[in-house]
């Protein structure tokens, strides 16, 4: 018999799993329409300059080619930069596809070839000849570092570095123990399995239905209406299934613009799917040059923290992330100075990629902490506990919860930390050196304003609806769990409608806020339905629940039952009949509490541990074990939760050992733009990843006590592995990825 909390907290399989594995789930590129035309994007060859001319005659002459769109014949679109700004655009002038002859970066779209079928479009695209006027470019961040600047406009939601506190420089000079190092990681691309794609269905009369690869249907919807001057009612965007995105789908990308433009121009349905190479032409985790300087007294207490970062951005937008603030908040220290500047290179604008900023900054800080532990002759965990802080040191606010101590304890136990030798290069097994490393992970726990609707019908079926997305995280499943527990239903009795711009307002799925935000909204909507339904039940003639309050009743088995006397109940159907309704529907909104925000901050924490084996002569690293101990408030579904941490862990492993987009600075072009040469970890690289959630009760972070798990799995992982490599080999590698040549 379903009890009050039957599904929440239980390891439930994804309710959309069967549709995904049988192919019934349709992704953006898999929708079709009568008379569908196909568009192939032609990518530019140079890094900077102008298009002198486009020779389209040969392409246009191919039978079946409908049109070749370029800057010369594109549709007129909005004039102001403002109109091109989507919900998460950084400050600047967003890139406008096919706007003019200007080339801003290599791989920029320069034409869209539309034909009756895909093959014809692809063939015709290969016939397009483009003549460029080449200008000087610079794609090397090192070269541009001299021109780094503090962005004049801050990106919404990204806190700039706090003002310095104390005197970090002086304290550094006075303290007995120091470490200082330069850190960097390679440019990384998100590389979700599903390429970006948009299928735009022309419904007639200027109405469009769009299936887009996006992390928020309403973001695309607003972008389209704003750029093309369309009425909100005429554009419906859906993103029913998203095959991974990791941030690459937060902003609408050029394939959407091009598909909509062609559909409007040709008054026809059209599909545009990017190739894997083209997945390297719009967003990436920026190259960031960091310097961290720490000083401590002999007890390991931090006396000075300085963290400076120069991050790459494009020439047209000031993309920003929070890279350095972590260094001011995670540990107690009175003297802190943090800087974050940007330098422009001729590439597309970088974009949020799983735990943007934290992944970058915490990697540097947590390696520096490992170096400091050695300098202080302390265990790395002991050093972190010595500097443990119960408040966000930047803002002087308490955490709504922080069970990080427990993460350290449990993680250390699971990895077998006691086996670690504090002397690097002192443990061997056969030809391999053995090493252990650890790092702290941290990510903000957000709640974003989100609306949801719940509808209960007399047959005991519930529908919950919100425009939120499921980018593979399990949104469908957790919303079904929350809805089911609201009324004591089976999961199968709940239908979840999400991923549609016509549904109640929800933000893009990012920042790990979806479970907390849409979950709280759904719970609130269900609560409103429960109250209305109870009202109807009370109104029944001689109602057994006549005086019952909402806390006194339970909803289960299709009935509202008096908790202390199960013989007193009213069925859902009878209650609705009494109320003269055939359904009960309510909409509710969850939003962050302003009062809580005045006094508290909320973060998810993790302690990540790694055990590595390094072939001493050949430099090959195997990360044989990773333990991720996470404190993330309430875990709605341990199964989907674990998957998120596993995925983050694998991505962190990739960052540590494999992933690197290589730029040819002479050509200003990324060169290894395919999955054969851009190395994400393969199964052989991924060994044992142990995920453990520590108990954490938090009644302030969100109405449902949830913190979110999408990004915490990657933060700290690369540092833990790099620290383990040091412990194994005695080689401190501060430039990721740690490829074998760096260990020879």
């Amino acid at each position: 018999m379903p009890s009050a909390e039957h599904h929440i907290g239980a390891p439930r399989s994804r309710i959309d799993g069967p549709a995904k594995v049988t192919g019934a789930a349709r992704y953006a590129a898999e929708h079709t329409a009568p008379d569908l035309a196909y568009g192939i994007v032609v990518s530019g060859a140079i890094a900077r300059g102008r298009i002198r001319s486009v020779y389209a005659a040969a392409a246009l002459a191919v039978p079946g080619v409908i049109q070749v769109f370029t800057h010369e014949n594109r549709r007129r679109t909005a004039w102001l930069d403002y109109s091109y700004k989507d919900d998460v655009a950084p400050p600047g002038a967003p890139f406008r596809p096919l706007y003019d002859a200007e080339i801003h970066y290599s791989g920029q779209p320069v034409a869209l070839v539309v034909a009756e079928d895909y093959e014809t479009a692809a063939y015709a695209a290969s016939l397009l000849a483009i003549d460029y006027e080449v200008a000087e470019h610079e794609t090397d961040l090192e070269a541009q570092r001299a021109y780094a600047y503090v962005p004049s406009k801050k990106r919404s939601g990204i806190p700039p570095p706090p003002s310095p506190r104390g005197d970090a420089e002086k304290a550094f000079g006075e303290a007995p123990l120091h470490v200082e190092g330069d850190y960097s990681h390679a440019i990384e691309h998100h590389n979700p399995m599903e390429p970006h794609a948009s299928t735009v269905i022309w419904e007639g009369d200027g109405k469009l239905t769009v299936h887009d690869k996006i992390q928020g249907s309403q973001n695309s919807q607003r972008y389209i209406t704003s750029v093309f001057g369309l009425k909100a009612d005429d554009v419906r965007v859906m993103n029913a299934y998203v095959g991974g995105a990791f941030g690459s789908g937060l902003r609408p990308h050029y394939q959407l613009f091009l598909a909509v433009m062609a559909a409007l121009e040709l008054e026809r349905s059209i599909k545009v799917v990017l190739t894997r190479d083209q997945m390297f032409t719009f967003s990436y985790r920026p190259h960031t040059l960091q310097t961290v300087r720490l000083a401590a007294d002999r007890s390991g207490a931090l006396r000075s923290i300085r963290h400076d970062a120069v991050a790459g951005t494009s020439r047209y937008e000031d993309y920003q992330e929070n890279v350095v603030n972590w260094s001011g908040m995670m540990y107690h220290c009175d003297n802190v100075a943090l800087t974050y500047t940007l330098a422009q290179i001729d590439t597309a604008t970088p974009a949020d990629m799983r735990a943007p900023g934290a992944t970058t900054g915490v990697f540097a800080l947590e390696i520096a902490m490992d170096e400091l532990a050695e300098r202080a002759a302390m265990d790395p965990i002991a050093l972190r506990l010595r500097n443990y802080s119960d408040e966000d040191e930047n803002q002087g606010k308490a955490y709504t919860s922080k069970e990080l101590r427990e993460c350290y304890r449990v993680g250390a136990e699971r990895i077998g930390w006691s086996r670690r030798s504090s002397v690097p290069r002192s443990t061997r097994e056969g030809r391999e050196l053995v090493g252990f490393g650890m790092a702290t992970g941290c990510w903000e726990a957000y709640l974003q304003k989100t609306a949801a609707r719940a509808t209960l019908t007399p047959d005991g079926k519930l529908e919950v609806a919100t425009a939120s997305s499921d980018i593979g995280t399990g949104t469908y499943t957790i919303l079904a769990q929350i809805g089911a527990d609201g009324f004591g239903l089976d999961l199968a009795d709940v239908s979840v409608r999400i991923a549609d711009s016509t549904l109640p307002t929800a933000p893009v799925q990012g920042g790990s806020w979806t479970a907390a935000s849409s979950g709280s909204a759904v719970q609130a909507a269900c609560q409103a339905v429960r109250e209305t339904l109870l009202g109807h039940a009370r109104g029944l003639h001689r109602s057994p629940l006549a005086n019952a309050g909402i806390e006194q009743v339970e909803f289960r088995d299709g009935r509202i039952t008096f908790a202390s006397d199960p013989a007193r109940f009213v069925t859902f159907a009878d209650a609705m009949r009494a109320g003269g309704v055939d359904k009960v529907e309510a909409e509710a909104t969850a939003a962050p509490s302003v009062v809580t925000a005045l006094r508290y901050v909320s973060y998810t924490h993790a302690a990540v541990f790694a055990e590595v084996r390094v072939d001493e002569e050949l430099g090959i690293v195997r990360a044989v074990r990773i333990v991720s101990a996470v404190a993330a408030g309430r875990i709605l579904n341990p199964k989907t939760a674990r998957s998120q941490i596993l995925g983050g862990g694998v991505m962190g492993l990739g960052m540590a050992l494999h992933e690197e987009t290589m730029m040819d600075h002479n050509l200003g072009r990324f060169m290894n733009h395919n999955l054969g040469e851009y190395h994400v970890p393969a199964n052989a690289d991924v060994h044992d990843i142990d995920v453990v959630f520590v108990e954490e009760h938090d009644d302030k972070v969100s109405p449902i006590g949830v913190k979110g798990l999408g990004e915490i799995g990657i933060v700290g992982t690369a540092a833990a592995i790099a620290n383990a490599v040091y412990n194994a080999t005695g080689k401190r590698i501060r430039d990721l990825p740690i490829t074998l040549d760096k260990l020879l």
Partner: protein
Amino acid sequence: MNNFEYLRAESLGQAAAAAADPATKIIAGGTNLLDLMKYNVERPSRVVDITRLPLKDIAETEAGGLRIGALVPNSDLAYDERIKARYPLLSSAILAGASPQLRNSASTGGNLLQRTRCYYFYDTATPCNKREPGTGCPAVHGQNRIHAILGTSQHCIATHPSDMCVALAALAATVHVTGPNGSRDIAFGDFHRLPGDAPEIDTTLRPGEIVTAVELPPEGFAANHTYLKLRDRLSYAFALVSVAAALRQEGGRVVEARLALGGVAHKPWRDEAAEAMLAGKPASPESFAAAADHLLRDAKGHEHNAFKIELARRAIVRALGQAAAGTPQSQTDKRIR
């Protein structure tokens, strides 16, 4: 991808006649050719499908070796009982490459003729002497982590990417070919060529010549061999450096050695002089290091691949050690012994 005509070859003669036309390409498994066509690197106006030709057998030869038909899939070859027992080096090298799905599709002949993985070669927005002779070689001053250290020229520093071919070079296989002017045999070491001033030409095949089979001599070095592949992830990546090593030994001394490297040159790099240095020497790290130094005597690195010289030296020593000890590298457990 361009439009092309498709022809299914009914006979070897027909295929060879068709392939003599430079605008025609032969297709076997298609795992390389189709990718290149999608990237507009290869733009054949006609594709001749040879997969129906009777070139799918592995047969005993009179000399006591095996003759492998050009259409034997890489997987079938690797798992063939005779290959596993008599030429485990070949089996191991094949299993070190690509993925199961690719190996199921890839053919023996296609593996020999697969083209380099140089990033520039695959990207038609960039110059490349191999793709478009005379346009230059951006890899020399560009991203050259995966490029060659031996036998390069100023015109091209690409590598041959095959694993299987490294084993075939070490085993001194022979390539059987048939062309419009009849059949001939090519020693494996003469099949692939160095870039010189014509990097657009990968092999010594003449126009219209089709690989029909690869023949293995009787000696398979089944007791003492290894294929050691070092790469940027533990599976599904091309070799930075790979070593096929095979030994015949007696009483702790090397009688005969075979040593070929992958990932370092425009062809599988077998060095007979280095092999000869080992003959008669004790099977010791010192002799192995001396052979490695000799093999690498002319190695030349570029900005991002200079590490390959030292890596190759260490890999050769390790591989010869594995071979001497009779403990070949496992291709399933990725731990290097």
